[in-house]
């Protein structure tokens, strides 16, 4: 094999350790019971596959060079049927071995399929995920209606607890995928699919829409933040509250502009309750990224995004040039208060 390929694949083994730094999509090492058995199975099948390739490769080379004809092609050796009988043994032995391996693999596959089925405990905490072109709307369910809240693109979960996700689509087919915590589950209009995951290790995990869903399918990521139960509870408390009245005049002015120009699409609980075409912005500043994982949530990026979403995400369903320059600054100032 090409040496660069080998290099790249050995780099692969080291990648999960990069988790501490950047969130990664690699799933050679995973961090929860919804996926760990799959990872083992994946490695197993991968090793079987590589062995098959190596063995067949060796047999081919052996066959070629064993009796490689030294006669130039112009004088072809006479065809022969002498060793006709010997050949069939290859088929019997080869196919027989294959069948045995396959039976083992099928059994293992079925066991793993059962092992990663949703555990009963997952029903205790449910997040409703609604996928839209090209962002994720999240709704944390609760027995107590006062504890239900919406957010977007960034899922927080407590470490060590199974969480259930009810997936529905607002438009086309998407696919919900956080590789280090669970396999994919499609999000299909007209049906509610269910996924679950549990993080055994605190950290930030990256996810991404995996089903082609239009021009910005490439930029439909999400983050899963797994944190200690205490940190999670604190986050949750923060999310449940409504936004507070801004303190400065500029921000207040920004809020008014927001109410006319942005509220048709965006909700800020306590201020503009209606818009559902874009993400809920009530606690925008608690999120790490903007526009479904596309941009780090920095002040410059926020201003830039509002000024021209189409520059960053051509085709996104938020128009350019809604605001004039001064309005933009005021709205940005207002948004900075949303934490």
């Amino acid at each position: 094999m090409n040496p660069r390929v080998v290099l790249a694949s050995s780099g692969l083994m080291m990648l999960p350790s990069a988790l501490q730094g950047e969130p990664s999509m690699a799933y050679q090492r995973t961090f929860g019971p919804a996926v760990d058995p799959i990872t083992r199975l994946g490695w197993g099948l991968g090793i079987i596959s590589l062995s098959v390739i190596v063995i067949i490769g060796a047999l081919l080379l052996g066959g070629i060079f064993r009796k490689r004809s030294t006669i130039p092609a112009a004088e072809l050796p006479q065809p022969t049927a002498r060793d006709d009988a010997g050949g069939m043994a290859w088929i019997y032995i080869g196919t027989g071995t294959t069948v045995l391996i396959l039976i083992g693999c099928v059994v293992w596959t079925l066991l793993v399929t059962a092992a990663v089925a949703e555990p009963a405990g997952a029903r205790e905490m449910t997040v409703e995920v609604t996928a839209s072109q090209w962002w994720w709307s999240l709704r944390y369910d609760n027995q107590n209606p006062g504890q239900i809240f919406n957010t977007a693109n960034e899922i927080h979960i407590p470490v060590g607890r199974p969480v259930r996700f009810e997936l529905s689509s607002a438009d086309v087919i998407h696919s919900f995928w956080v590789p280090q915590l669970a396999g994919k589950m499609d999000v299909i209009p007209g049906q509610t699919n269910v996924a679950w995951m549990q993080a055994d290790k605190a950290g930030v995990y990256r996810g991404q829409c995996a089903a082609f869903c239009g021009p910005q399918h490439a930029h439909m990521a999400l983050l899963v933040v797994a944190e200690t139960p205490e940190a999670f509870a604190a986050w949750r408390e923060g999310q449940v509250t409504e936004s507070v009245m801004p303190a400065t005049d500029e921000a207040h002015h920004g809020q008014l502009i927001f109410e006319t120009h942005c509220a048709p699409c965006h909700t800020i609980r306590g201020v503009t309750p209606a818009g559902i075409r874009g993400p809920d912005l009530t606690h925008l500043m608690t999120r790490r990224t903007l526009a479904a994982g596309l941009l780090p949530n920095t002040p410059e990026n926020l201003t830039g995004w509002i000024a021209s979403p189409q520059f960053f995400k051509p085709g996104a369903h938020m128009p350019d040039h809604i605001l004039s320059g001064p309005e933009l600054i005021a709205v940005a100032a207002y948004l900075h208060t949303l934490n």
Partner: protein
Amino acid sequence: MATIETHRTPVIARAADGSATSQKLQRTWDGKPGLGGWLSTVDHKEIGKRYIVTAFIFLLIGGLEALAMRVQLARPNQTLLTPEQYNQLFTMHGVTMIFLYALPVLSGFSNYLWPLLLGSRDMAFPRLNALSYWVFLFAGIFLYCSFPLGKAPNDGWFNYVPYASLAYNPGPNIDVYALGMVLLGISTTVGSINFVVTLARTRAPGMSLNRVPILVWGTVTASVGNLFAVPAVSLAFFLLWMDRQAGAHFFDSTAGGQPLLWQHLFWMFGHPWVYAIVLPAMGIVSDGLPVLCRRPLVGYTAVALSTVTTMVLGFGVWVHHMFATGLPILSLSYFSAASMTIVIPSAVAVFAWIATIWTGRPVFTTAFLFFTGFVLLFVIGGVSGFMTAAVPVDWQLTRTYFVVAHLHYVIIGINVFPVVGGIYFWFPKATGRLMNEAFGKWTFWVMFIGFNVAFFPMHILGLLGMPRRTYTYADNLGWGTPNLIVTIGAFVFGLGIMLFLVNAFVSLRHGRPAGPNPWDASSLEWSTSSPPPVYNFAVIPMVASRYPLWENRLDDGPDRSSVGTGLVLDKERETIGTSVLDAEPDVILKMPGDSYLPLLVAVAMTAVFTCMLLHSWWGAGIAAVATFLGSVGWLWPRRALAQIET
């Protein structure tokens, strides 16, 4: 007017090229000269070559689209292509490669070779053959008609709803795809019917079913598969068109429709189809490789059965493309196990090839390199399919570059490599000249290395979590380097294809003259001159074994085939019709001559679809009437075809 003869006893005689018989045949079978002859010919060799050349042009177009995508993906966050352009490119790339290259190129091979392999003068329905080519060509052009306008199909080759529905995709993009596919389906269907009937009817006497070459098994299996599978996709696209243009609700979940119905219909077709585009190519190897190993194929019967079994099982695994759609675990488990089972017939074939090499005395020709290279690539592609067949593993792998790697290994590995090898192998038969061997071996290595450099790292990209169908990616995910390697490999592979084409072009003029049987091969096509005369065989050979030209040397069985001496059928265009199983002579078939009707009917049919695309219902009606009249003219009972007495 005398009534035409109802019975005749065919004369058995010897006739070589240049004999009186062959001169007479030359006159009866020769086509018209000039453009008229070109447009009206029904000669299977001519049509076969056209299929191959056209398919290769589409391969180049699809390849250029791929290279454009690869440039965009070479580095993170590139902006060479807009998202919409990228989407149209990957869609047209998939559509072109799968529908306009992969099957048509094999139809070309089979069209060219079948009558020669079977010892016959033409396909069962020569005019239908021409129709099938013309409709394929026009459907290809139709599918590309909106490309220059920037409105090409843009939802991937499997075109999932609801993104393909009017609400999310209002332009003509998807209508072009839908109508184009229905049109193309007609070509595939009539082509498949022709293969099945040809196998059933027009083999040389004595060529019983267990003596036909494996390529014939592969093609007929693929054809029967097509007859059963293509209606599913034509229907799916028709229903989609109804949803879009007539306000129906088949896939509309707000009115009782189901997006998943699309996926079921598509993959009920799609999975059998992927075997349809490889079984004939595997046949090419099963017939070519043994010749170059100087021995018969090991396990002919096992390989023939594995061909058929693959297709049969292939109809029961479509759900493995839908493992992540939330279906019940029970049905997923069934389809997972079934998908693993399908490895078994492939294993039979792989071990048969290995045994053939191992117990033979391989001759290192270019074709041999391509055929053995194919075996390795097939295994690499096959085992990645085996990994995705495990449901939970697929939940990770599906829709990532791992699947893109799988599909290119299997399609390029099992289709492109055997096809290129097959061209090296049969080029001398078709043109009378050999391709350059030394240059050919270089070409092989460029292609083989380029291919692996391009597509092996895609597995790694998939394992690093890169989703397919993304027009760009961020720089902090570790995807940059493998993508760069992929792009470099893609260009090397593209270069390899170019080198191959250069070799073909140069050899056409300057290649070494080949003689009838340069590889000292065993099957009937090598018994006639290179290139073969229009009538293929001066006398219809009579076959007594699987390897008519090797009988004396293999010394199997008491009977001997007879190739220089055989049935003289020289009144008008004639060939022999034989019984299905044992190929006992049944009837002397009258064959039609050149005709413009296939072309005219194809034009009329294409006009129907074009008018539908343009919402010109009157136009569509008129074109439909023209299609009908053309067909009536075509089928009008003719005395020359002994369809009527007077």
